[in-house]
């Protein structure tokens, strides 16, 4: 069951690579939040109940609901156009994300370590690299933020792989989620929206040498 959920997560990456509208991105973020909720419940069987509840609460409340709703609010308030505006055509994006996934599979098959659950490793790495890819190839600042949130989801999957032995690390990961998202979204994106009407990275290219 865990594997099915994780593979669904990997498939959502392919979908996000060809998504055109910002709302599709948000829907995928919500979807990934719910998948992580399920994976957490199925994987972390050995940790204390209170800790498990805390982690699951974080995935459902924070990842699946609060953050996408807030991003949605920011998009509406600033009147950001609905297009994602990629630099590359969707077809190329699809090929590249597929390539990322395949190469992580090849990489993981070269690792001979019995302690490692390969599915977690593959899905986590491909999510992280897809997030980085999205940041590099999209024009809007809001899509950069979404790319970062996807990286965080990937990191969360990776932390679940070691979660039973070291629950402390999963808690650290949650701290990272909340801290970085609040810092990026809450404090600054609001202000970027106030100062720039249509936030696009071209407005942020004055600092250079």
């Amino acid at each position, binding site marked *: 069951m865990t594997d099915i959920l994780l593979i669904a997560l990997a498939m959502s990456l392919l979908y996000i690579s060809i998504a055109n509208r910002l709302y599709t991105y948000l829907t995928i973020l919500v979807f990934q939040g719910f998948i992580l909720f399920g994976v957490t419940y199925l994987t972390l069987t050995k940790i204390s109940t209170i800790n498990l509840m805390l982690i699951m609460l974080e995935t459902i409340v924070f990842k699946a609901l609060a953050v996408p709703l807030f991003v949605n609010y920011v998009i509406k308030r600033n009147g950001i156009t609905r297009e994602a505006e990629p630099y590359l055509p969707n077809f190329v994006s699809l090929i590249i994300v597929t390539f990322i996934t395949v190469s992580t599979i090849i990489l993981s098959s070269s690792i001979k*370590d019995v302690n490692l659950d390969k599915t977690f490793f593959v899905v986590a790495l491909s999510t*992280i690299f897809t997030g980085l890819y999205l940041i590099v190839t999209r024009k809007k600042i809001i899509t950069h933020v979404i790319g970062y949130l996807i990286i965080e989801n990937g990191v969360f999957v*990776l932390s679940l792989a070691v979660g039973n032995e*070291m629950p402390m690390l999963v808690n650290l990961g949650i701290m990272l989620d909340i*801290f*970085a998202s609040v*810092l990026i979204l809450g*404090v*600054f994106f609001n202000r970027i929206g106030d100062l720039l009407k249509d936030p696009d990275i071209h407005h942020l290219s004055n600092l250079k*040498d």
Partner: protein
Amino acid sequence: MIGIFITVAFTISGCLFFNRNKLINYTLLVLFIALLIVFSYVEYNHLNIRELGFFKPDALGVLLLIASCIVSIPVIIHGYRYIEKHNLDETPKSRGVFFGAMVLLISACSVVYLSGHIAVTWIFIEITTLSASTLIYHHRNLRALEGVWKYVFICAISITFVYIGILFLSLSLKDAGIDDMSFASLYANAGKLNPFWLKLAFLFIFTGFTAKLGLVPMYTAGIDAKDKAPAPAGALLASVLMNAGFVSIYRVYAVISRTPLEHWANTIMIIAALLSIFVATVYMTRIKNIKRMFAYSGIEHMGLVMLGLAAGGIGVYAAILHIILHTLIKPTLFLQFNQIYWVYQSKSIYDVGNYFKYNKVGAILLFLAFISATAMPPSGLFISEFLIFQSLFQAHYIIILLVVLILLTMIIWGFGLNIFKLLFTPHPTIDETRIPHISPWESFSQYLLLGLAVYLAYNPPVQFVTLLQAAVKLIK
């Protein structure tokens, strides 16, 4: 004592954020300076005693703590001058937020120096991102926003990288059968760690911390930050915060230096260091923004520090000496920048000139600081840089040494070109009646810092050398 320090320092920072009364504000700052001095003294006398389970003041941490304490005092004084004199649009609120963030940054870095656990290091590095971004956004205009956005975004990605590295490190612990991630336990069990995961962990952790240390690949955020932050805050970002990155990398490197992977890690560090020095050279020779020039000079020095560390032998000693002297010298340049700005109202090299005529004491200091930062004798950095070159020679990195020497010569040329233009070239269009008189006392603390750097390099006190040697021994 660490518990008391964290509680009191964070309380002071919180009070500064919410307090609007000027007198209380400055009383709190004096209180914080006193706390920092007492804290450094106590930790110096509690070397290598574990506190609260997660903290262990080792020699390197205490050295950097004392250095940051010495630097913080003039920085806070100049912060006060900056707020009082520079900006007419300062409000009680902006003053409170500025000093609150400054106190938070200094205390978070101090805790990072003394951390004995990788997770604690990571958490407090996050806090430095938060406080640094508040400082960078002090002026609340579009450019400051751009700087802070880039800083926050790159730091968020780099902190994620460090977290991934910590996860890989935990995978490598499984082979050794331990789950304690304190540095002491990692040192003790270094031989038993799984080399594959350790390699990946080092790569990610190193890449992540380069955002704070200022090396390729993540150095860019720091440059914009030091440019847009007010100069006293820039002085902190260029010294105290960089040291926090250094100490984190140093401790992880100390783990890997106890395994057969040491040589591999050295190669990675040399590549990053060489690229950093190269990038610094490229920008220093063509840069026209004085503050960014100072920031790139920091990138160059961090590259040299990494080279010393990678070369081993006397190089490790030289690297630690270098970073401490750099902590004293780089803030003088940033603190001095305020005076330049008061005279010319510009950061661009095209708008400045004939500085000797308008501010003699400041100009002499700037000249001395230039000599210090480019490591020409009698600068303290000359000694450490010389030792780093010696260690490269002894480790048979002759070609690397030659490349570095050529690049450094170009940096001195570029740096000198701009500084001499600023100091000596007459500027035809400047309105001399508008230039304010600048008191020589504004430069006093910077002279002290430069003098201290020379003294520490040429006539080091016994306690200083003992601490340095103990810090070197963290690496096997």
